[in-house]
């Protein structure tokens, strides 16, 4: 599905208003916006993607694994011209393509259908392998996961494998709002590092710091950015 009534002249300052079309709230708490800056900086400055060339084989891939609370993601997709602003008010409605978990079959620009936790990172590993096998080695694969999502064992199968084989075009961003009940002794980055990943832990609200962490070189290794935001309460 493609839309003809999209608009691309939006900036970061438009995102709260776009989100409010879905939430009905003027202001949004940290939980609703935990991924907002992380996703915006990726789409605005890092990912080589565009709505106009949505299916280009050599495009970068962004996989939203943590599919719940996708308002910030949809707002960014609207701001970047993938979906029209007029769709946002229908969020969750029967005849809307915008569910409370995104569906790639329904929404242009959405690379995976998510909602069940722990699927994005393995799919990202497969995507990175698939692009490499086709000689599309310039394309980067990014996957966003939540800190509590790391509880799911499937992630650890993917982290261990990607680190062991040095899957360089794989990138993960872990949005850490300290929502895991049992935490992670030693920290999230240490876990990835032990598996052979390149890591950076940064302030998930600071755009320049995020950008630098996203674009740090990591030859021969997959890269994870742990983006810390306000703790979920």
């Amino acid at each position, binding site marked *: 599905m493609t839309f003809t009534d999209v608009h691309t002249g939006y900036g970061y300052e438009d995102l709260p208003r776009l989100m409010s079309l879905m939430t009905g709230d003027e202001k949004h708490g940290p939980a609703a916006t935990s991924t907002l800056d992380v996703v915006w900086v990726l789409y605005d400055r890092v990912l080589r993607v565009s709505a106009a060339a949505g299916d280009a084989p050599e495009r970068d891939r962004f996989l939203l694994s943590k599919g719940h609370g996708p308002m910030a993601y949809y707002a960014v997709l609207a701001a970047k011209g993938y979906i029209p602003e007029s769709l946002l008010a229908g969020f969750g409605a029967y005849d809307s393509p915008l569910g409370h978990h995104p569906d790639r079959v329904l929404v242009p620009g959405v690379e995976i259908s998510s909602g069940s936790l722990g699927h994005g990172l393995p799919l990202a590993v497969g995507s990175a*392998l*698939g692009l490499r096998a086709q000689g599309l080695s310039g394309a980067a694969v990014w996957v966003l996961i939540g800190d509590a999502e790391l509880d799911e064992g499937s992630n650890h199968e993917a982290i261990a494998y990607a680190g062991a084989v040095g899957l360089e075009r794989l990138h993960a961003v872990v949005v850490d709002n300290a929502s895991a009940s049992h935490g992670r002794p030693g920290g999230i980055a240490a876990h990835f590092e032990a598996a052979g990943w390149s890591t950076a832990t940064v302030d998930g609200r600071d755009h320049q710091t995020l950008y630098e962490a996203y674009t740090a070189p990591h030859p021969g290794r997959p890269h994870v950015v742990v983006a810390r935001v306000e703790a979920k309460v």
Partner: protein
Amino acid sequence: MDTMRERFASVVSRLLDDDPRLAVVLAEIGKDGFTDAARTHPDRVINVGIREQLLIGVGGGLALTGMRPILHTFASFLIERPFEQVKLDFGHQGAGGVLVSAAGSYDWPAGGYTHMAPGDVALLDTLDGWTVHVPGHPDEAETLLRDAVAAGDDSVYVRLSAHSNSAPRDIVPGRFLTVREGRRGVVIAVGPMLDGVLTAVEGLDVTVLYATTVRPFDERAVRATAGAAVGRVDVVLVEPYLAGTSTAAVNDALADRPHRVLGLGIPRRELRRYGTIDEHLAGQGLDPVALRKRISAFLR
């Protein structure tokens, strides 16, 4: 004669040479068969280690980039253990792949229940759009594997077995084959059950249909066979997996005709015996002697 699994490795290794879209994904099991292919195609023969959730996720990810993934391990670890991945990383993504299992229901009886997956086909029945092939001979496995690989972006399950019929049949993917004709009922033998069924029904006046593709179910063949009978139609299914898996499919095929269906296969209860395939089949009531008794009693 090679085994179905050996044929799988040799055929798919050749297909990898010809089709750059293909990739094989393994979780340790079966990797020896792909040693040479892995050397020739290091980016398209992928062993993720003993990680079956990742096995399926990687397959889904490959498909999302336009590849045709072929995944292989034992049925217990390909379908049962990572079932949510099968559901979400293929179907829900709108992606497809070829899943090729081994060990099935009873291939390694001495290995016990942990290595048996009689419920695999029934589980796939809860999902939309899966083609399921159950070859009964290595030659048929080759035909069905080639068909599965060439089936666009369809999701296809190929259930290989160490249990095999003595000779291949001239099968057509998707179609049942009429092996013999009779008037007292229809016996549908699935894959490796054919030889046992033919021995069991010797001298009985029944039709035997041979099924090597069970999903979609060849309703037309069942209806055409039933059309020749007078009055009520009696159908016996003999499946090498969970008993009754295809009973509903037969019912659907004959919805507008009076009929009875007997679904024979692996029972739910654990046998908790080891031994050989033949001993196991006898223990499950699926050897020719038991089959003859059960089929005769039903058709009487």
